[in-house]
């Protein structure tokens, strides 16, 4: 789910929505800058880790870009494939809420709380990471 969000957003960015620079390749594959990689890594908590991974990302974008071959002039974009479905409205009644009982039997708990690591999920600082050169 995280990667999907990243890819959708990335295409929007590569399309020049906000201030990231990207060199447009006439063949349709875009260059991805070092700042963008760093930003994505922080937001989505992924680690590109190597040049090969960045290259794979660029190929993924290029693959998705093939959608542009379709002529969408004067066609309204869909928001989702469920657009013509009816959104079901539930009555405001209490019918559930006990899942924690069943889950907590198997995990160490502290006074009925779920336990998570301290603080927010941290990302190693730039100088702590193993450097690899971006193109």
């Amino acid at each position, binding site marked *: *789910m*995280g990667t*999907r*969000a*990243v890819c*959708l*957003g*990335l295409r*929007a*960015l590569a399309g020049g*929505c*906000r201030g990231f620079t990207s060199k447009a390749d006439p063949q349709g594959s875009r260059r991805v800058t070092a700042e963008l990689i760093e*930003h*994505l890594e922080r*937001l*989505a*908590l992924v680690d590109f880790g190597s040049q090969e991974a960045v290259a794979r990302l660029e190929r993924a974008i290029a693959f998705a870009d093939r959608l542009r071959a379709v002529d969408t002039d004067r066609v309204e974009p869909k*928001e*989702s*494939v*469920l*657009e*013509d*479905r*009816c*959104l*079901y*409205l*539930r*009555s*405001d*009644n*209490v*019918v*559930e*809420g*006990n*899942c*924690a009982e069943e*889950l*907590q039997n198997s995990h160490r708990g*502290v*006074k*009925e*709380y*779920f*336990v*998570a*690591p*301290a*603080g*927010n*999920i941290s990302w190693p600082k730039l100088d702590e990471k193993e450097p690899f050169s971006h193109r």
Partner: protein
Amino acid sequence: MATPILRWCCPGRRWVFAGIGSVSRHGRGVPTGSTSSGKRGQSSVAQQPLITAQKPRKGEREWAAVVGLEIHAQIASNSKLFSGSQVDFAAPPNSLVSFFDASLPGTLPVLNRRCVEAAVMTGLALDCHINRRSLFDRKHYFYADLPAGYQITQQRLPIAVNGSLVYSVCVGKRQSQMVTKTAGVKQIQLEQDSGKSLHDSLRSQTLVDLNRAGVGLLEVVLEPDMSCGEEAAAAIRELQLILQALGTSQANMAEGQLRVDANISVHNPGEPLGVRTEVKNLNSARFLAKAIDYEIQRQINELENGGKILNETRSFDYKLGFMPEPNLPPLLLYDSGSLPTGTDPQQVINIDQLREQLPELPRVTREKLVQQYGMLPEHSFALLNEVGLLEFFQNVIKETRAEPKKVTSWVLNTFLGFLKQQNLAVSESPVTPSALAELLDLLDRKAISSSAAKQVFQELWRSKGKTPAQIVAEKKLELMQDAEVLEQLCRSTLEAHPQVVTDVKKGNPRAINKLIGLVRRATLGRADPTVIKEVLERQLSS
């Protein structure tokens, strides 16, 4: 609505550079849990500012501040926004969590009809355009109390847009005049609340309670139309009253049912708007105005010292974290002219029907009070500002023959004064509306004087169960009804104090008060001072 109209400061308030010697406050700063503490601005007064192209001007300058607000109000509903777990803030941790709330795989969101109605009603009350079609999105970020890793919200196409919130601020030297202001409502959207995390630094872990995860929130975004903390606080107060009148949220800030984030920037009038900073999670009405004013002053000081305002919190501006919620079709709303035929009415929300059922809004209630009872607008505000006070007032009016102005004065001054002194709510008052009504009747009939009435009120407050009439009898506070006796007492007093009489005739204005005092004592406080004065003056002049 969003065009940056250059505003001068709040009525009577001028923002000035606070002096060269003032210390720029780093780190400790705003006591409201602001996330940007510790990394404020880059300059400090201790350093000499570098020589820049523009020499910073010192001394008094006009500054204007621009404040926008994002308000999160918890919807008053039985169950959560997308699941059937109960909404209750006093339950044991993790006792109100469904599989969906815990984000277990295979679960899907199911929209709560009551939450949609609450959003539409709030939109209507704030004069918004209700979008007949609105969409849900996912906003991704990582935090221990957000099990799904995303929050379902309505960023792109929310349920209501383009409204306005009308509120009033007190102006003038004695804060007695009310001025009406308007803040634009940019949008109202439905979204999920997150759970709660407690940080246990001792054991280096975070404790998570998901009871609140998934509770429905109304996010109300106000345009940056406010210019200081006081205006922001007044706008919030009015929104609170509206939400409470609608029943869409209890909007109690202390219990976290209403949370406010403020976006603040300063600029010199005539120049473009400055960089915004965000002050987050304001959850006390008192702190709100102070925190905003503090931040405004901090920014002014920073800029006056040649520094820059840094904006650290806008990681969502890049909009990389958003995607459409794939599990929810668009939300469609209808009006009387567009109702679909042959559908289950439970599945259809009719905006016109909701509009007809809207309860009376505070603004209308206040206008009615002013018109019906001739009270000042400030009084109508005061009556609505305290829970239960309006009802108390109306019950007294129903049962008494006294003039509304008298009732207003007694309720807002005497009654409210006693309540505040002992920190009581209206519901805890030892004096009932009937008792006060009876007391005011006695006063109206001139059975007792106004000072006696105050005494009776005090006694009513202290001893439950006694009626005003009983107290009057016990303490012998009835006004003397026999005019002849009063005449007699006045004459004898005049005869007994010839020196004072001479003083009065000489033109000493205070001498008559002495005589009045003497007569009052002689009557054991059972005569109205104004009547005494009349009689004395008549007798003296004859």
